[in-house]
């Protein structure tokens, strides 16, 4: 058991031991430049707006309103995700909750469902004219506007916090908290003063992803009629005023930059405690049933409701067939193919950045790591258009030939999910291990390949799977950049919804949940992330 105060020493030693080479720094910088490059298009577009008009746009009361709404959405979703995600993570890792494997899967699975599909299902179940209304003549209070968006986005975003907090809990030493208990600290006190500081970086990492997802989401706020920043960007797009949209998107980036700097402060001093002793599980006693009831209720709301609604659409097909919307197996294959490619490339991009920033504590490494998060906060349609421009100007003959540009687009948006998880596992490498390898005359590359890589592999796989899952449910960039005529599961759902023929959305939606769900289970079985 290590005294907490030794962490800083450990960290210093780590950094001193094996200073990353300048080649690694250059590689990381290259990745950062690549994924931030679409922002150049935004700046270039925004610069064409007349100064007076730009001033007017930025300072208009409408912009002020949507900024306030977006920030409120982001803060509320983040806070609620913390309230759901952290206790659930503690519940499934540190208590004697029965069937904790099952509850872990239930708590993580909502991440695989696109939130706007969750919204449609929720209204279809509980809204007026929905299933509950038809069966029992009752409807829930109207869920719409900003509150509705907060509610739905939280339900499908909190798993970010759950997963990262869970990973942090699994990799920190539970016996520390027990020691605190022997010193007469109450359980809550021990959690607050010992465990929480240990897992704080993990929590912050998940909270950041939830926050960025919330502020960049368009589909759910639009469905709920919430007037947020992304609505304004889309509004300008719909009037073909791309330069206004670009200017507004830059403003969004500025807000996000503030968030990134703040989070950098909270998430700092990520420690390397590698203890696996989780200590005695907390006994729930009388709380066992309420705890299981709570997770079940959440699972019903986030998982059972959409699946039930989609199945309902499927079995109640009454209209004339619409052959053009018929399901084809290649939709699923395409989705999986795109998502796998995105996952692999994202991991390859994430490795240098995560390794560099995990083992160097310089301003440059912080900036490079933070820079990879920017794309996650920009709406997909904006990144998509930027890459349309850049792709046609750099490699016109390859534009929309193959999937390279689409995969790059996914990486631009979803890279931070891989950077975050890989970086956490880099931080957990005990420095003495690497020193041992070096004393055995292993060169830096051999050390990385034979020692470091195996150690961080769980983090790499987890990051890859997160990218896989978010790519599976991505819509706007896929519609824009996929090889012409290639359909995916989410495109099929979108087309069915456009046609108001929801029965054709059922099979792709159920398959999306099935494939993503199985992938999620694989992820949770990963060592270090494991369902234990």
């Amino acid at each position, binding site marked *: 058991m290590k005294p907490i105060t030794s962490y800083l020493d450990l960290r210093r030693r780590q950094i001193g031991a094996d200073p990353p080479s300048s080649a690694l720094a250059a590689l990381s910088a290259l990745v950062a430049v690549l994924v931030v490059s679409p922002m150049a298009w935004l700046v270039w577009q925004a610069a064409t707006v007349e100064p007076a008009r730009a001033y007017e746009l930025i300072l208009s009361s*409408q912009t002020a309103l949507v900024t306030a709404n977006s920030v409120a959405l982001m803060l509320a979703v983040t806070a609620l995700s913390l309230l759901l995600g952290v206790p659930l993570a503690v519940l499934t890792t540190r208590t004697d909750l029965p069937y904790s494997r099952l509850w872990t899967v239930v708590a993580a699975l909502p991440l695989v469902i696109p939130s706007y599909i969750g919204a449609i299902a929720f209204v279809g179940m509980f*809204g*007026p*004219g929905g299933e509950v*209304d038809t069966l029992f003549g009752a*409807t829930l209070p*109207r869920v*719409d506007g900003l509150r509705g968006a907060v509610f739905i986005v939280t339900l499908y975003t909190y798993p970010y916090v759950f997963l990262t907090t869970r990973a942090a809990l699994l990799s920190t030493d539970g016996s520390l908290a027990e020691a605190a208990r022997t010193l007469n600290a109450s359980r809550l006190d021990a959690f607050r003063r010992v465990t929480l500081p240990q897992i704080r970086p993990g929590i912050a990492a998940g909270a950041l992803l939830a926050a960025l997802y919330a502020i960049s989401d368009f589909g759910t706020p*639009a*469905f709920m*009629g919430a*007037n947020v920043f992304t*609505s*304004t960007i*889309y*509004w300008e*797009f*719909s*009037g*073909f*005023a*791309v330069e206004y949209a670009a200017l507004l998107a830059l403003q969004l980036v500025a807000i996000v930059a503030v968030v990134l700097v703040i989070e950098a402060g909270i998430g700092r001093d990520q420690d390397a405690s590698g203890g696996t002793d989780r200590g005695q599980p907390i006994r729930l006693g009388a709380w066992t049933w309420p705890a299981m009831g709570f997770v079940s209720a959440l699972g019903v709301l986030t998982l059972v409701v959409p699946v039930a609604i989609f199945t309902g659409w499927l079995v109640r097909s*009454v*209209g*004339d067939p*619409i*052959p*053009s*919307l018929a399901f084809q197996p290649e939709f699923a294959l395409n989705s999986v193919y795109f998502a796998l490619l995105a996952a692999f490339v994202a991991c390859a991009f994430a490795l240098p950045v995560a390794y560099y920033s995990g083992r160097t504590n310089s301003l440059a490494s912080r900036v490079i790591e933070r820079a990879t998060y920017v794309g996650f906060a920009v709406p997909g*349609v904006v990144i*998509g*258009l930027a890459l*349309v*421009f850049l792709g*046609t*100007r750099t490699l*016109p003959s390859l*534009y*929309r030939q193959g999937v390279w540009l689409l995969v790059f687009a996914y990486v631009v948006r979803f890279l931070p999910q891989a950077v975050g998880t890989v970086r956490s596992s880099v931080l957990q490498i005990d420095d003495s291990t690497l020193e041992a390898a070096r004393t055995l005359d292993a060169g830096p590359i051999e050390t990385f390949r034979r020692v470091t890589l195996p150690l961080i592999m769980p983090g790499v796989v987890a990051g890859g799977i997160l990218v896989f899952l978010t790519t599976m449910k991505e819509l*706007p960039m896929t*519609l*824009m950049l996929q090889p*012409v*005529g290639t359909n995916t599961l989410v*495109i099929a759902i979108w*087309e069915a*919804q*456009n*046609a*108001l*023929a929801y*029965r054709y959305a059922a099979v792709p939606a159920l398959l999306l949940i099935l494939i993503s769900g199985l992938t999620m289970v694989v992820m949770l079985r990963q060592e270090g992330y494991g369902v234990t």
Partner: protein
Amino acid sequence: MRRATHGRPNRRRFLLATGAAVTGVGLAGCADENGGDPTGNGDALADDGTGSDDHGDDGGAGSVADAEPMGEPVDSTAVSWSDLGELEGELTIYSGRTRDQIDPVFVALEDEYDGLTINVDYDDNDVQVNQLVQEGDATPADLMYSQDPGALNALVDEGLVQGLPTDVVDAVPESYRHPDGLWTGVTGRTRSIQFNADRLADETDFESGDELPTEIMEFATDERFRGIIATRPNSGSFRGFIQAMVELEGEEETRGWVRAMVDDQDVQLFSGGSDQADAVNRGGDDDPIVALGNSYYAARILNEDPDAPIDLAFTENDAGCLFSVAGVGVMNDVDDPELVAGFVRHLLAAEGQEFMMDANGEYPVVEGVDYVGELPNLEEINPPEFDLSDFDMDLRDAQDLLTEEGMTV
């Protein structure tokens, strides 16, 4: 009224078959006001085969307007696919229309011609336009198939589309296409009033849809619509409606209408046409009972459930029943101009028109193909006539008007 293809000594005659079609089909609503020269102004891209100025300048591609005539004149009452030449090769189409609406006609063409492959890219209409603008001439698209003239005009403004063959241009009444033939409407529809028939009778002072006002301006002033009306302001169709209202009623009145809808009627705003129609049909306490939108959404719901409560009404001879078109523009740089020209001809031929009339309940734009369907005839609705490519107020200003009056989503 008929228009033949004579009297243009400097111009080659394209699509002789359509010459026959033009004679047979006739082209009402298309008075010969500019001397039979629809490409008469200086921007004309189709003129004289002298090549093009701002399109197709890489030489290899060639222009669609110069596509070879096809076949011999056919003396029939309507041009049919069988009168047109074979379509062979590969076409790439960017579509802002939805798959369920237009895929059937593409499939029918592919079934008809073994050598034809049509690759279609579907996305939201406005996204397609933005994407085409960013792509410039590097676009893989041969054509843009849009549901909205405003989108096609935006492509014209960016110099991204080229002139259509004169026979195609001549086949379509001028108000349904670009005056210089830079895009053409293919099918038409009117704006409509969607309503939930059950709720209208039970919960409002209207007994039935027959009692709804026939003037769009009243929807903003009649107190009976307060709190129960909705619209979707972010569509090209709605902007066209606003542009039309400005032209018919004046800008101040239009601003007043928008403001009254927002402030007095507390209009519910949707960002998706499907969501709006769904809500009208669903009929929950907070859902709108009446909504302004395109008629085909109701048709889709009724296809899924013939007993659904959603129904349609139309205003008369004002912006509320604006007749607008879905249509195509040909991108500057196409691989096979003959194929593209032939494809557009097929859309405007009798089968193409009837196909979309049946599938989508849309109105034909080529005179002589009679509308058969459940919607009222255009004579009944009597929509005002507009030059859809040239409203007094341009699209940007219409968008700004909505932003300024607070009708945004």
